[in-house]
């Protein structure tokens, strides 16, 4: 026996697929990078927007708000402040506090969320004041989140100009959520004046009386929702858990994450399709040979689809790596560190791999169909 043949392994379709991809290593690797970038964008952006949503969730759950009352959307500051009185008089409501929030340009290059609260808001209960004291209603005072204070280099007693009005920094606070750590909180009336929205608020945060024994939490929330909406026609009462996903910032983040990923994915698919179309074209004669050797159309179709699928899978694995790197970079940047979590949920990884393999199969479909359709004799004559 020749010893050289001992190294041989049986040729299978999968080994053949591998050899075909390996034969054009450079092209294969470039294609993997293409689809990998797309999947990396998907993992990074969707991972980011999911983390963003859970940050919002944390704000709502830590402040003890059960229900938010809004006009239509969370970003409309069009609710009348007067509705607060009606709310507080409802039997299930323990407390209701008006809130404005808005994205504001504090300095030419620092944007921050600005919250307008009443000085007696129950939401202060869950907040830790590091230095200074709570503001008083009607005074031009602001409280800064610790992250934002660092960024602006302000301490208690300093003056901060917001839209050319001077505000005194009265406190620095620490918040559990990165979104609040990066924000300013000021008296509701001051923010109304700044944004020319006197008498208007964005939401009422409502804290309910304790759930009666024997009633389920969901049922109680439903009942409270109905009671509030009946008392204030035209307004919506949204449970806190739903509020995070309904939040327009979150929706915008999701939409741009998915939108960007889809565009990247489309480019990745075109990359694989181009690679496979070229490779089928170059191998026209080989496909003729395979047909002459008894391969039927299905075998040829399978060969090309498998090659494309393997490109998709490989690209997906590359993409997970890229996405992981991207999240770690975002987590290290001061601007995004507070919101980004570097842990990726397993379902997102599985989803990314599935999307990638699917992308490969879609991209391979047309070249595979073309290859399978070739007539053996025509393909053999091709040069």
């Amino acid at each position, binding site marked *: 026996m020749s010893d050289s043949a001992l190294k041989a392994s049986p040729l299978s379709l999968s080994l053949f697929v591998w050899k075909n991809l390996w034969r054009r290593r450079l092209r294969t690797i470039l294609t993997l990078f293409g689809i990998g970038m797309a999947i990396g964008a998907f993992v990074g952006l969707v991972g980011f927007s999911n983390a963003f949503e859970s940050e919002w969730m944390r704000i709502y759950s830590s402040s003890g708000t059960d229900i938010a009352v809004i006009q239509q959307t969370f970003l409309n500051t069009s609710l009348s402040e007067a509705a607060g009185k009606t709310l507080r008089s409802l039997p299930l409501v323990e407390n209701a506090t008006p809130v404005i929030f808005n994205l504001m340009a504090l300095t030419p290059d620092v944007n921050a969320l600005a919250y307008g609260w009443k000085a007696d808001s129950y939401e202060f209960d869950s907040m830790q004041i590091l230095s200074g004291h709570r503001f008083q209603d009607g005074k031009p005072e602001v409280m800064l989140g610790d992250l934002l204070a660092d960024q602006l280099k302000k301490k208690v007693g300093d003056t901060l100009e917001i839209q050319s009005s001077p505000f005194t920094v009265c406190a620095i606070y620490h918040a559990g959520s990165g979104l609040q750590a990066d924000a300013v909180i000021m008296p509701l009336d001051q923010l109304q004046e700044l944004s020319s929205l006197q008498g208007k608020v964005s939401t009422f945060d409502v804290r309910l009386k304790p759930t009666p024994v024997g009633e389920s939490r969901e049922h109680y929330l439903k009942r409270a929702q109905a009671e509030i909406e009946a008392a204030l026609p035209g307004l919506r009462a949204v449970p806190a858990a739903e509020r995070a996903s309904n939040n327009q910032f979150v929706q915008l983040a999701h939409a741009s994450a998915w939108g960007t990923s889809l565009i990247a994915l489309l480019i990745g698919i075109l990359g694989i399709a181009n690679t496979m179309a070229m490779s089928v074209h170059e191998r026209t004669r080989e496909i003729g040979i395979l047909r002459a*050797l008894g391969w039927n159309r299905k075998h040829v179709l399978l060969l090309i689809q498998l090659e494309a699928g393997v490109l998709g899978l490989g690209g997906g694995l590359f993409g997970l790596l890229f996405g992981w790197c991207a999240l770690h970079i975002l987590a290290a940047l001061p601007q995004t560190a507070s919101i980004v979590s570097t842990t990726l949920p397993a379902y997102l990884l599985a989803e990314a791999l599935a999307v990638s393999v699917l992308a490969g199969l879609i991209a391979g479909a047309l070249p595979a169909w073309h290859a399978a359709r070739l007539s053996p004799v025509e393909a053999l004559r091709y040069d």
Partner: protein
Amino acid sequence: MTSPALELRGVHKSYDEGRIEALRGVDIAITPGEFVAITGPSGSGKSTLLHMLGGLDSPTSGEVLFKNAALGTSVDLDTYRSQDVGFIFQAFHLLPTLCAIDNVQLPMISTNCKRNDRLARAKNLLEEMGLSQRMMHYPNQLSAGERQRVAIARALANDPEILLADEPTGNLDSVNSAHIMEILIGIQKKRGMTLVIVTHELEIAHMANRHIRFRDGRVEA
């Protein structure tokens, strides 16, 4: 008389919507185990004829019968090519990215030959071709004669009854030519295969049981 292994009945083949008539009514019957040589001028339709016999293409009219069953209707062409016929080409047509032993296994992927049998079969065939020291070599590492021997091993991979060779020695020098013919005739005798060779060399034609002369898409009387 035994029934023919292969039979052409009134086979016509035209290209370009009838402008080119490659075959103009061919009737040939080939008995099992027969060695037939086909000669004729360039462009007379020899390769076209072989493609019909090998199920690579279908006639424009007329029919090709394998053991009295019409190819393309009673017999599935893919199955026929994979199980009943082996093809050898002038240009060898080995896949450049696969080593000799992998090339020989290619036809076995389309049948349900077990994975481990594939390797053993390919090894035996290459040994039979005197290539036991060349199994892991790639086509570009082999001489022309060696390549054609790999191609013969590949044609035998699924143990067909019929071997079709289109100018198998056309790219070889006289020494290698003689060697290849020796192998082909040896196989045909040993396995009782039906062998059809298209050739330009009269010497080869004289070794055959029957010599068919072709001209203008017809068998010359």
